[in-house]
Every structure is written in structure tokens, then in C-alpha cells.
């Protein structure tokens, strides 16, 4: 079939069915915008993991003379105990680096961080000396924690990851919710496209009947319908892509980034990487939905 003729048939079809076309565009746009939002949340979680896991460490606090509890019964950590703790940490295969933080160093950091009246009431002896451990793989913290936790002279092992994990759980929940709603919307979009194509096929049954009789091939009969659906799907995907870009530009960049500087945020490249998937999904979903519908309603 000639391209120009096909194009004119498709545009006539879209205009003749304009209300349904708009409905398809809107539904596809909403579902893909939510789908894109889900992908953005995932990218954000990945960005934050990269950022934070690079910085987090395991802190092994050792007993000072004021500490109580089973492992600190003997008072402040002795030199032998400290050596054993250090060797245990350094020999562990998952450990990348170990820093020692003395009571005096802890005191300095405390003074820097809390430059107030409270700081004046603290003496170095009240703080704990500690080892700061960086891991090869931040996900593999269990082994190190359990190897060190029971040693004499160790007061407490704090793994910063457990604090972050709760935050990532929330992000995962948000992502799952966005993708779940997107999925429901996509089902709605598929049904709507299917129904629209059925109506279009019905309203053009005279044309398609004549096409069958004069020996038009199946694809020649179905192509205009599939193209119409694909164009509506593409328009919806473009609307979704524009919404995603606008959301990033005017909410993430303008509002979230300046307000929450403690973490890094997804970059433009992360957002732009999502957009092609939206366009592909829009076209593929719409074309597939119409193709499957036509199999049933345009028999030869």
C-alpha cells in the first residue's frame, strides 16, 4: 500500500474517532507517567545507595572506664584487648580499611559537631575510643559484626547500614506502589484501546469488507488500525515523558534538591534514560492491544 494513502487513511480514522483517541492518549499518559515515576524512584534509590554505602562504616565502640555490662566488667579496654580486636577486624576478608579513633579524637569531633554549652561539660574520658571499619562490599556486614561483637572490651557495634535500610525499605515501598498503580492503569489502557479499536473496526466494516473481497492482505487491512493505536499510544507516551521531565525540573531540581542536601539526587542523565522506555512501552502496548483485538474482530 502506498505510504501517502495509508497516512491519509490513518489520520481520517483518528479524527473520526477523536473522543476515543483522546481517552486512549490520556489513559496511556497516566499509566506511563506512573510507570516512569516508579523507574525514577528506583534510580533515586540506586543513586542514594551508591552515595551512602560509599560513606557508611561499621563502628566498633570499645569500653571506657564508665561503661557497665558483661563485656566491660573489667573496666576500660586493655591494650591486649584492643590489639585482639584490631587483629580480628584486619584479618576479616570483607574489611577494606580500618581507622582508629581515640578518645581524644572523638572529643575533637564532638566539639566540632556540637559547638555549644553541652560540649563544655564533656571530657575525653567520657567518650569511647573506636575502630571505624570500611567494608569491601557494604552489603556484607553481618560477618564482621558477628566476629567482633562478642570480643571482650567491645561495648557496642553500630552498623550504619541498618539505619539506612529502613529508609530504603520506604523507597522500595514507594516504587512498588507506583509500579502497581501503573500496572492497573496499563490494564485499563489496554482494555480501552481494545474497545476503541473494536468500535473503529465496526464503524469501518464496509471498507474492511470491500478490502477483503478485492483481496487486500490481512496486514493491509489491519495496518491502519494498528498504526492509529500506535500513534495514540505514542502521543500518550510523549505526554507522560513531558510530565516526567517537568516533574524533575520543577520539583526535584527546584524544591527537593535545595531542601535536602544531605543526599545526592538523580541526575538529568537518569531521567533521560527513562524516556525512551516510556515511548517504546506506549507504542508497543497500544499496537499489541489493537493487533490482538483485530485478530478476533477482523477475520478473513
Amino acid at each position, binding site marked *: *500500500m*502506498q505510504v501517502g*494513502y495509508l497516512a491519509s487513511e490513518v489520520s481520517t480514522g483518528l479524527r473520526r474517532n477523536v473522543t476515543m483517541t483522546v481517552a486512549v492518549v490520556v489513559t496511556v499518559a497516566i499509566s506511563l507517567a506512573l510507570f516512569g515515576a516508579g523507574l525514577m524512584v528506583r534510580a533515586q534509590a540506586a543513586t542514594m545507595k551508591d552515595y551512602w554505602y560509599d560513606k557508611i562504616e561499621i563502628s566498633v565502640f570499645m569500653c571506657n572506664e564508665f561503661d557497665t555490662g558483661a563485656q566491660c566488667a573489667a573496666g576500660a579496654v586493655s591494650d591486649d584487648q584492643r590489639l585482639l580486636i584490631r587483629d580480628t577486624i584486619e584479618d576479616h576478608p570483607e574489611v577494606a580499611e580500618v581507622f582508629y579513633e581515640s578518645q581524644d579524637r572523638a572529643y575533637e569531633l564532638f566539639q566540632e559537631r556540637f559547638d555549644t554549652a553541652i560540649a563544655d561539660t564533656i571530657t575525653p574520658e567520657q567518650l569511647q575510643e573506636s575502630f571505624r571499619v570500611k567494608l569491601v562490599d557494604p552489603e556484607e556486614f553481618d560477618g564482621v559484626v558477628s566476629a567482633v561483637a562478642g570480643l571482650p572490651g567491645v561495648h557496642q557495634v553500630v552498623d550504619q547500614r541498618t539505619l539506612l535500610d529502613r529508609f530504603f525499605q520506604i523507597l522500595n515501598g514507594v516504587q512498588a506502589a507506583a509500579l502497581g498503580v501503573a500496572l492497573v492503569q496499563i490494564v485499563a489502557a489496554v482494555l480501552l484501546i481494545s474497545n476503541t479499536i473494536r468500535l473503529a473496526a465496526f464503524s469501518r466494516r*464496509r*471498507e474492511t*469488507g*470491500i*478490502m*477483503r*473481497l*478485492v*483481496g*487486500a*492482505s*490481512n496486514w*493491509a*487491512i489491519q495496518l491502519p488500525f494498528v498504526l492509529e493505536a500506535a500513534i495514540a499510544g505514542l502521543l500518550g507516551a510523549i505526554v507522560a515523558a513531558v510530565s516526567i521531565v517537568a516533574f524533575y525540573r520543577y520539583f526535584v531540581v527546584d524544591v527537593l534538591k535545595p531542601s535536602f542536601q544531605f543526599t545526592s539526587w538523580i541526575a538529568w542523565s537518569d531521567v533521560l534514560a527513562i524516556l525512551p522506555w516510556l515511548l517504546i512501552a506506549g507504542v508497543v502496548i497500544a499496537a499489541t492491544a489493537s493487533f490482538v483485538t483485530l485478530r478476533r474482530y477482523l477475520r*478473513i
Partner: protein
Amino acid sequence: MIRFEAVTKAYPRQPRPALADLTLEVGRGEFVFLVGASGSGKSTFLRLVLKEEDPTAGRITVAGKDLGRLASWKVPQLRRQLGMVFQDFRLLPTKTVYENVAFAQRVIGRSRRDIRTRVPEVLELVGLEGKEDRMPDELSGGEQQRVAIARAVVNKPLIVLADEPTGNLDPTTSVGIMKLLDRINRTGTTVVMATHDQSIVDQMRRRVVELDEGRLVRDQSRGVYGMAR
């Protein structure tokens, strides 16, 4: 050109088959009237030739192809050898005369140049030159049927199948349509025409095949519509 061998077509929930054990051969270039009361199986015969339906039993050969063995994706190729004319014309009301005829060429992928030469040619053949830009509702019934015939023959089919082509037309107009079909037949195209129109069958004196309740009851060369039975 068309051969039916012991063809039976039964529909579900119908007490008797629409066609029963029909054996019939239509040769190349023949002109055949298919007559019989409503429900005698004429339309079923035409649908089977087009492979819109498959027979319950028996073998059908059209233009050298065994329809029972024809893959479904090859059915469009078969239909390009067939031209179909209906009682109700079945023109596209939103397209001009020219576009209605060109439509049959466009949808099977003929080139623009082919269309530009062939469409005026058939419009002249059916006597509609100068009316290319009219819309179907601006034409008389006879003229609309001429457009439909032009569309049926524009792809140079081997066979033209006509289902009551004069059913909606007055006798004078009908004669004109029959002359046109006769002219098309004389160029070598096989014509099978289902009809109720007694006077036309009697005038034309061509082969008459009569069906009654799905059975072949008469096959007569140079026949008339009704035998005294």
C-alpha cells in the same frame, strides 16, 4: 474455472444443508445464471467460491486452486482473481466514483501509475467517463452499480461473481447492466450471476443452473428462467 465436486455445506442448527452434494463445473469464459428461490443455496455457492466459508464435505477448485488446501494467507491472492458485485452496490459513501474504483487497487498495493491509467480505462468501459468526481449518492442506482462493476473488474479478475446485480434496478436500467456484464464476459472473463430476474435470464439465453433447497435441479445451456414443472 470453477469446479464443485460433491460439495455439501451444512450450517449448525439448520435442519437441512444449504448445499447438498453439488457437482458443477463452470468453464473458462462461460456466462452462467444461478437461479432458484430464496434459500436455494445461490449465495452459499458464491461464498464458497470466495472461500468466505469452507464446505462441510466435497472439493472446490477455483482458478486451478484447490480451496481446501489453500493456506489462509493465500486467500487474498485467490480473491484478486475474483470480482464481486452485489445487489446493494456496497460503495464507500465518503469516496468519489474515482476513489471507490481506485480503492480496490490501492489496498492491494498497485502503484500510483497503474491506478492513474487503469481507473479511467474501466470507468470508460462501464460508461461513467466524466463522472469521476461524483459522490455515490449523486448517482442513479444504475450508475452506482456501474461503479461497483468497475471496481469488480479493475484488477482484471478471471471470474466475476454477481449476486442479484439487477435486484434494486428498474427493467430498463437492468438491461444496461446486463449488456455491460455481457461485454465483460466477451473479453474472456467468466461470469456467474445469481438472479431472480426472469426476463433477463430469458432474454440472454445463456447457461442456467437452477438450485432448489441446496440441490442442483437443472443445468441447461441457452436456458430460460423457469421450466414448466
